[in-house]
């Protein structure tokens, strides 16, 4: 059977590997549909033919379940992300937030706090270390964490809060990731939990969910810079 899986863009690289493994072990095929979680939410509400939804946050998976557009009780956390402050320049970011206090950078990239969990986390961090208002002028927002990464990667922003997963596994990217980063302590922001729900209660989809929850999958996810619950 074909399983259509809607995946938040940031998790697509990992999901691709998972899907390949799954297809190798079963007769099912997995079709990945990447996109923003807000869009996927709206689409599912309007009858999109997706079987499973891997959201970028808890909120929208939960709403689908509560509003009756997803299978009750199928919701689970599939990954927890880590926020890092990264610059492609080696030695630019130290092991703490000090670089943020210097006025040497012109742009600090984050994901849009309104839309992306990593953005919300970045905002919490800046508030926690008391720099939220002072960095306002230099903040640039990407629609999602992918864009925030591009801002930094292309050098247009000197540094930015991005996902650890984006720099963790260099084999995902064609170029070797260089640079310096600060792994933001977990206590500075509420966890970046990503949840999934079953949209259509079919057996292949349930199978796929079980596969994602499996040990083997969990270790793949972890290898890419995520934690698992």
């Amino acid at each position, binding site marked *: 059977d074909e399983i259509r899986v809607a995946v938040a863009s940031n998790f697509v690289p990992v999901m691709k590997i998972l899907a390949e493994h799954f297809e190798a072990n079963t007769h099912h095929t997995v079709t990945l*549909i990447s996109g923003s979680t807000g*869009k996927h939410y709206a689409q599912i509400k*309007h*009858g999109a033919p997706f079987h499973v939804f891997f959201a970028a946050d808890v909120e929208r998976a939960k709403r689908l379940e509560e509003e009756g557009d997803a299978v009750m009780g199928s919701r689970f956390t599939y990954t927890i992300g880590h926020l890092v402050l990264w610059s492609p320049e080696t030695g630019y970011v130290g092991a703490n937030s000090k670089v943020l206090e210097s006025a040497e950078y012109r742009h600090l990239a984050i994901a849009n706090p309104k839309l992306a969990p990593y953005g919300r986390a970045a905002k919490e961090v800046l508030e926690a270390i008391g720099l939220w208002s002072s960095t306002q002028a230099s903040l640039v927002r990407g629609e999602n964490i992918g864009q925030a990464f591009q801002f930094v990667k292309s050098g247009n922003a000197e540094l930015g809060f991005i996902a650890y997963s984006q720099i963790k596994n260099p084999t995902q*990217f064609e170029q070797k990731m260089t640079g310096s980063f600060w792994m933001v302590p977990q206590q500075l922001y509420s966890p970046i939990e990503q949840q999934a729900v079953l949209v259509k209660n079919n057996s292949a989809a349930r199978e796929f969910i079980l596969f994602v929850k499996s040990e083997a999958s969990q270790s793949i996810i972890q290898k890419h810079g995520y934690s698992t619950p």
Partner: protein
Amino acid sequence: MLNESDILALIVTLKLAGLTTLILLLLGTPLAWWLSRTKWRFKFILEGVIALPLVLPPTVLGFYLLILLGPKGPLGDLMASLGIHSLAFTFSGLVIGSVFYSMPFVIQPLQNAFTAIGRRPMEVAATLGASPLDRFFTVALPLARPGFITAAVLGFAHTVGEFGVVLMIGGNIPGETQVLSIAIYDHVESLQYTQAHWLSGGLLLLSFIMLMSVYAINGQFKVGRNDH
């Protein structure tokens, strides 16, 4: 360099753009003709309405189309009662969305081209025994050729590059509603830059060759003017 799904996306894209352009030309030509001839006082309202889809961000437009066409939307209801399945997340839905979105790019050049013809050539054709439909095809269309080229190029290219509407009402389903623009976007988003570069490059090259051919062929027929 291109994987299977990219090629699939290319095919969907060409099919979508081709079909959309065709439909737009078919629908747009009579509408543009009428707009260029009518003396209706409130024509400017219709002209305004036609240009309107342009100002909404494509994704938002797609969102509203989704609401409209989805099974719970007013049109979806209507269609369901007629036994038609929801058009959202289908290729037909994409076509409808693209037609809607690219409409002004086709109507306006056509309308201008028709207006520029003036009444005389049509009058002459009438005195030579050509019926309205006959003279429309044998006089108005050939004389409006530059307008048609522009309309077709803008319509086609815009549909190829279109993205927001398609993403929203199409659902990005490979082989069905995943078009090239979304595929490239996905590559960029998931940081697969090399693939994005290749795909963009290919798309550009292909489009460039197509556009160039259209213009080169167009340049060979000159619609002369009676003013020399």
